[in-house]
């Protein structure tokens, strides 16, 4: 079981709340047109995200997907430049060039979220490979969804990581749907069970709303990877509370009310708040934590609001390292 100090557990709750409140704000901003395009929230999946990122060390790498805000937040990225990025401001973590789908914060080991489903899995694999060649003790983790679990590149990467014994965690966020498509209708077999054929442990965390259960499973895999034991596949069963993306409206509801109510009754941030209170924290302390995080989110929005849009000309920077090659 998790061997965490109270302080660490408070930090876990703080990061989960950051995701919750950041994404709730982002959702509103999309609906009001303050954020262009759309965003995919991790609301409901906070335990799955933070349980995973918290099991990594500061210098460790990770890559992610379109459900993108939680990962860097969970890894400790400050909120201001993330929010500014969502809005398309020059102070965004990617200078406004990436947007929600393509957050990256190399300072915290976030090598990039990918709008293309499955596409960033080999990037994390390559980071694990460089760790191994350079022998620098870093571990890499790739986040991907239940839908992405049917992209072939996952199995190529698992095989490569298994063959080369790379320090790597393949982390499947099984929120049971890929857009409108229920996982069981397009997935043959069980995702975690696919690990065995690729010579690595496959762990399925059935209660992905319990952040400590997630942390334990991922930490075991991280420790194993760091010790030279090679890669693992960890599948975490969870649920997204919102629609696939903000603003999307489908005529058919593909999820039923009972299912939703059941998952809502096991809200990860509420569960862990209660756990912390059981551990001796007061209600006031927890309320204060929420208020602090809300202030952080407010500050992030204020930071974004106060930031300029990028100059037209910067669109032509950053493609190549040398300016001459660019058109």
């Amino acid at each position, binding site marked *: 079981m998790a061997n965490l100090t109270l302080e660490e557990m408070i930090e876990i709750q703080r990061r989960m709340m950051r995701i919750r409140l950041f994404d709730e704000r982002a959702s509103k901003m999309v609906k009001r047109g303050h954020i*262009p*395009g759309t965003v995919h929230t991790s609301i409901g999946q906070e335990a799955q995200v933070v349980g995973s990122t918290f099991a990594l060390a500061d210098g460790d790498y990770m890559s992610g997907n379109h459900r993108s805000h939680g990962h860097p937040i969970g890894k400790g990225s400050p909120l201001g430049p993330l929010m500014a*990025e969502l809005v*398309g*401001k020059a102070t*965004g973590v*990617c200078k*406004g*060039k*990436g*947007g*929600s*789908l*393509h957050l990256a914060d190399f300072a915290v080991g976030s090598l990039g979220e*990918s*709008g*293309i*489903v*499955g*596409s960033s899995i080999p990037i994390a694999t390559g980071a694990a490979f460089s760790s191994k060649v350079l022998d620098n003790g870093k571990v890499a983790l790739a986040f991907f969804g239940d*839908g*992405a679990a*049917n*992209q*072939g590149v996952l199995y190529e990467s698992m095989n490569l990581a298994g063959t080369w014994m790379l320090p790597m965690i393949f982390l499947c966020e099984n929120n049971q749907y*890929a*857009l*409108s*498509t229920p996982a069981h*209708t*397009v*997935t043959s077999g069980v995702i975690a069970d696919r690990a065995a054929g690729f010579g690595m442990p496959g762990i399925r965390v059935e209660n992905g709303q319990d952040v400590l259960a997630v942390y334990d499973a991922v930490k075991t895999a991280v420790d194993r990877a760091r010790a030279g034991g090679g890669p693992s596949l960890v599948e975490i069963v969870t649920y997204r509370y919102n629609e696939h993306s903000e603003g999307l*409206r*489908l*005529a*058919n509801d*593909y999820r039923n009310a009972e299912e939703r109510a059941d998952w809502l009754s096991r809200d990860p941030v509420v569960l862990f708040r209660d756990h912390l209170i059981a551990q001796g924290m007061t209600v006031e302390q927890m309320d204060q934590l929420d208020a602090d995080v809300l202030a952080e989110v407010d500050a992030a929005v204020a930071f974004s609001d106060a930031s300029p*849009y*990028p100059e*037209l000309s*910067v*669109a*032509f920077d950053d*493609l190549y390292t040398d300016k001459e090659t*660019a*058109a």
Partner: protein
Amino acid sequence: MSVMSYLGAIGAAQREAMDADERVIIMGEDVEANVYGTTGGGKSRSAEGDFTQRYGKNRIRNTPISEEAMVGAAAGAAMTGLRPIVDLSYSSFLYMAMDQFINQVAKNRYMFGGQASMPVVFRSAMFYGLNTGAHHSDRPYPMFMNVPGLKIVAPSNPTDAKGLLRSAVDSDDPVLIFEACILWGTKEEVDENEFWIPLGVARIARPGTDVTVVAISGSVPEALLAAEDLALEGVSVEVIDPRTLVPLDRNAIVRSVVKTGRLVVAEPAHRTCGAAAEISAYVVEEAFDSLKAPIVRVTAPDMQIPFSPSLEKQMYPTRFTIAAAIRRVAGLAPASEQTLLAALHN
């Protein structure tokens, strides 16, 4: 006739094709729930008229997110008796299946000496201009033009979207259709009866005598606006919409240039090795003596697409940049700085 959107016209054509031939099936991610709006009631996202109810799950197939297997399986199915329409949603997901497109779909019939035919349609949408960032904004049709064996269609209006899709489904060769999302909302009167627009026949979107503009996909409406603007200055612009890029109606383009002596090519793809390069190179090779001025390309720059709206808006041909190119080849003075500034900040 009835008013249809571009998206609605695609839905209508799919319905007609499914009704006409039992071998036609639709497969893709989230097609059962009509997430992308072309497997529903024919107008927009809607539950009634739902294709899944109408045709059943044998013919309307949600696929896993496995583009490579999906494209290859559609090819294999086409070789053995089905006529699949594959909905690949965004054009930038085509890369996942590039091996299947090039090494199987395009080469198969030729390599096997004509034993197989490959009646399969791949639809995908170019989401450029909608602040979706670099991963979702691609316009990759030029790279497929370099692959012999594929047919490539890029409709610019609802009527063409409907009529070309019917011809694509009836073709015994593989067809890739690139739809521009910025056109999805376009509406016009479309024949609700069946009709087919042949592949390989360009459309003169606006006749003219002084300058030819060949415009592709989402650049067609912009070119038409530019032509209107120039008409006010007495320049008569002929706008040609090739509609299909392979086969390309090269004769129609050359005919026009022989008449006007001046050519601008506008397209939303990246510049280097784009369709505009091909059209320019072809015309200079075949109609050199008719040319009175350089051929000017108006394209996206060789730059990936930034997310920020403030950056993205300058990336694609607009009425203003096309007009500027027309002015250049017509030998007119550039528009006033004011007009150009207005253009950039519109």
